[in-house]
């Protein structure tokens, strides 16, 4: 049921070959250096073992050979290993230093809260009227370091967008911090990487890096309240009756706090935390069959008549 990626995206979490920002680039280099050293060491040890096994020996006298010799090997081998390890440790610490803090003061701060099996994203501003909430999709401007505050609403999750940065746990009762920066525009996939229960496997997020102008456009659009059909609309009524207990739409009376904010639902690429692409058919499928698509998710499979479903779909299609 995971038809989450667009055509041509292959191995979007491959941080070993790809890095798109300074929070992960030093680590990519470190990874390659370490992998090369490690493979070389393995080949050397394998060669030593092979020679040890295969080299010619004088004929067997049937007895036991003396206990002499060999210690020199142990000292030399351990000595060389220690020197290599020391170098590796220093390099690792230097890399840690490089990725632990952003190079400049972050231009943007946002808070991501892990929920069982989706991500709440809050953009804050000194002026509270400019705050907004969205879900599962983060937009950032290219070339600017971003600080992400990490919280959890229930169990421990972990925020990980591999090609941009390493992972950090989201622990209830604590606020952890993660920074990242995208040097190129694009869509960067992330996954929850701390086992968090039934649908840990389907807790995806996307970080979309855009040019500063496009980012400001997106941000302005997200800040606007919804302009839904008026109160008498059938779809709106279905939503308020069945969905507003958990979901919220800014600009309406729906203020549910347990599920993703849907104010600008249509603006997102994916739904159900990356499980489905965001099309009207998939939205309808999700509403009616959530428990088959993502068994155990907090979203129930809603039982709606075809008329109700059609009205609801139409209503949701207005949430740009």
């Amino acid at each position, binding site marked *: 049921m995971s038809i989450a990626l667009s055509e041509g995206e292959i191995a979007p979490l491959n941080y070993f070959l790809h890095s798109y920002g300074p929070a992960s680039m030093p680590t990519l280099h470190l990874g390659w250096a370490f992998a090369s050293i490690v493979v070389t060491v393995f080949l050397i040890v394998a060669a030593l073992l092979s020679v040890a096994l295969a*080299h010619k020996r004088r004929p067997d006298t049937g007895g036991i050979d003396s206990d002499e010799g*060999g210690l020199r090997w142990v000292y030399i081998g351990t000595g060389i*290993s220690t020197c290599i390890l020391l170098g590796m440790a220093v390099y690792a*610490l230097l890399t840690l230093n490089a990725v632990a803090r952003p190079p400049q003061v972050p231009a943007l701060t946002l808070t991501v809260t892990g929920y069982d099996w989706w991500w709440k994203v809050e953009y804050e501003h000194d002026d509270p009227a400019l705050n907004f909430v969205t879900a599962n999709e983060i937009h950032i401007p290219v070339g600017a370091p971003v600080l992400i505050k990490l919280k959890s609403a229930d169990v421990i999750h972990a925020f990980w967008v591999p090609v941009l940065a390493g992972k950090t746990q989201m622990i209830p009762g604590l606020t952890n911090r993660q920074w990242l920066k995208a040097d190129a525009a694009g869509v960067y996939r992330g996954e929850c990487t701390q086992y968090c229960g039934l649908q840990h496997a389907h807790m995806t997020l996307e970080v979309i890096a855009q040019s500063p102008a496009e980012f400001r456009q997106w941000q302005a659009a997200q800040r606007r309240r919804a302009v839904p059909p008026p109160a008498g609309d059938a779809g709106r009524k279905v939503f308020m009756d069945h969905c507003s207990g958990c979901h919220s739409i800014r600009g309406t009376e729906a203020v549910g706090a347990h599920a993703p904010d849907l104010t600008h639902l249509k603006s997102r690429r994916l739904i159900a935390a990356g499980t489905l692409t965001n099309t009207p058919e998939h939205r309808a499928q999700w509403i009616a069959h959530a428990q088959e698509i993502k068994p155990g998710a907090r979203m129930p499979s809603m039982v709606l008549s075809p008329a109700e479903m059609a009205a609801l779909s139409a209503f949701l299609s207005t949430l740009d």
Partner: protein
Amino acid sequence: MTDRTDSPLARIPETGRAPSGSDAETRLARLWATEPGWRGWLSTVDHKTIGLRYLVTAFLFLLLGGIEALIMRLQLARPDQTLLTPEQYNQLFTMHGVTMIFLYALPVLSGFSNYLWPLMLGSRDMAFPRLNALSYWLFLFAGIFLYASFPLGQAPNGGWFNYVPLTDRLYDTGPNIDVYALGMVLLGISTTVGSVNFIVTLFRLRAPGMSIGRVPILVWGTLTASVANVFAVPVVSLAFFMLWLDRQFGTHFFDAVNGGKPLLWQHLFWMFGHPWVYVVVLPAMGIVSDALPTFCRRPLVGYAPVALSTMATMLLGFGVWIHHMFATGLPALALSFFGATSMVISIPSAVAVFAWIATIWLGRPVFNTPFLFFAGFVLLFVIGGLSGVMTAAVPLDFQLNETYFVVAHLHYVLLGINVFPVVGGIYYWFPKFFGRMLNETLGKWSFWVMFIGFNAGFFPMHIAGLLGMPRRVYTYAPNMGWNTVNLIMSVGAFVFAFGILLFLVNVLASLRRGAPAAENPWAAPTLEWAMPSPPPAYNFAVIPIIASRHPLWEDWLTEGEGRSSLETGYLLMEGRETLGTTPLEARPDIILKMPEDSYAPFFLGLSGSLIFAGLLLHAWGFAGLMAAAAGLALIAWLWPSRALAQRVPAIKPDKGVAHV
């Protein structure tokens, strides 16, 4: 120094010979015999029987854990499979971890050590034979306790490291986690008493002349692990107990809303968990250090460095636990320190690896089945250790942690450093245990199939991890780039399982029809090969006097002062007796009286385990009753006995014996 030679309280130990068939030997056999039938089965304290029970039970758990893994690999062979529901998968992966790490990995090594220690050390039994029996019963009952939940669909499902708050009562409402918590506390008692037994046996019950520098490396490995257990097991028992209190009584230790700290669980768990992983590999490394030299026809290179590296690894193992928590947001300074110690800990391992390679290089390898397992082990050890070095680099671990890369690492170290030496060890000691040889052809086949299957199954996990595949996911999307590696992993897993099957067939067939084994079919150096295969109940007809590290190779090596005396030694047959010696030099110190077979360990184990069943089911009255029963069993056990010289010989007590 005693005033007079009271015969019940002190005597000069007799020396002499007791060849097979002599009156002395017959009398010894009768003294140490176990009753046949179910009576003997419940009451035996013979360490060899207990050791074999541990081995068989641990292998059964290995098979259960393996089946769990194979089912998971079927689910993960292709993307988006629906063979398993998420809940089923979560219980399977949790129980797979619990079974392998707690019910197989240490118990199998306890089995080897229990069987072999007295034979290697020159003693008639372990220091506490009844405690030995108890540790087995508790292990068996704890395993049953943990598995009883499975048929009810209530098996633990929070992962084997059981992080809170996922496993708190709000998010895991069934009894699953209570089963895990209470089961682990029960198992912890088994581990602790077993460890105490090993420690005291090592320091007290060696043959005279077996100074501390002459004991086999397996003994060093198990001793080190046992000392670590004494310090490490309490913290996990405490953590699980606190979790059980949070879940059942509403305490707040891990309750973030009320001042508790989820991170405390991670600290407590890993303060145990990291030393534990060394506990389950150091004795296995000892198996290789003892058995590999036999097949290189020369002693191990660097006995002292290897023994010291064993202890150094364990000691450092207490100082690295934060490397399981690098991604938790701890300050970079703490992370740096633990990252550095996590790299340093590989240095003692390097000592051992070079020692083994040097032993092979300078020796004359005999390419039989046990040797193949030990040589293969060296390669797997190196791969596992090197992937560990990669994860020790803190920023790299930010990427690798919780991906399949770590799954690869942990399986290379656990299968490579535990399972392969264990199977090799079975091939090596099977003749001693059962008096029959395993089939050599089938043995070689089982090695190659296991080796190829293992690498095919687990090496691709490194790749999957580098491609970003997270752990503990019940399925994955088709275009993440993980399809091919997962298919290879699943195929490899089944090939490896087939290798295990070949090994089992070999064992079962050879039990009946294997070639009869001599005393020392491998011409090995250590003491266990100086007695019949299988050994008699009393182990040594006379307690030998030891003069070197390789008593059976003294014809060729000149190590110690003179020759060991194996045929002539201490008779010690006034009842079940063995010799106690001083801790370091192994000079004779005391004649130890060994207990007869007893039902007390079984009853204590049973009632103790039923206490936990009562706690699980909230049957407090029943639990209290079982506690009383356990108390009675324990009092009966500890009642001072004249036969064990724990009380004075019966003197008719006059009123006020104050002036005797």
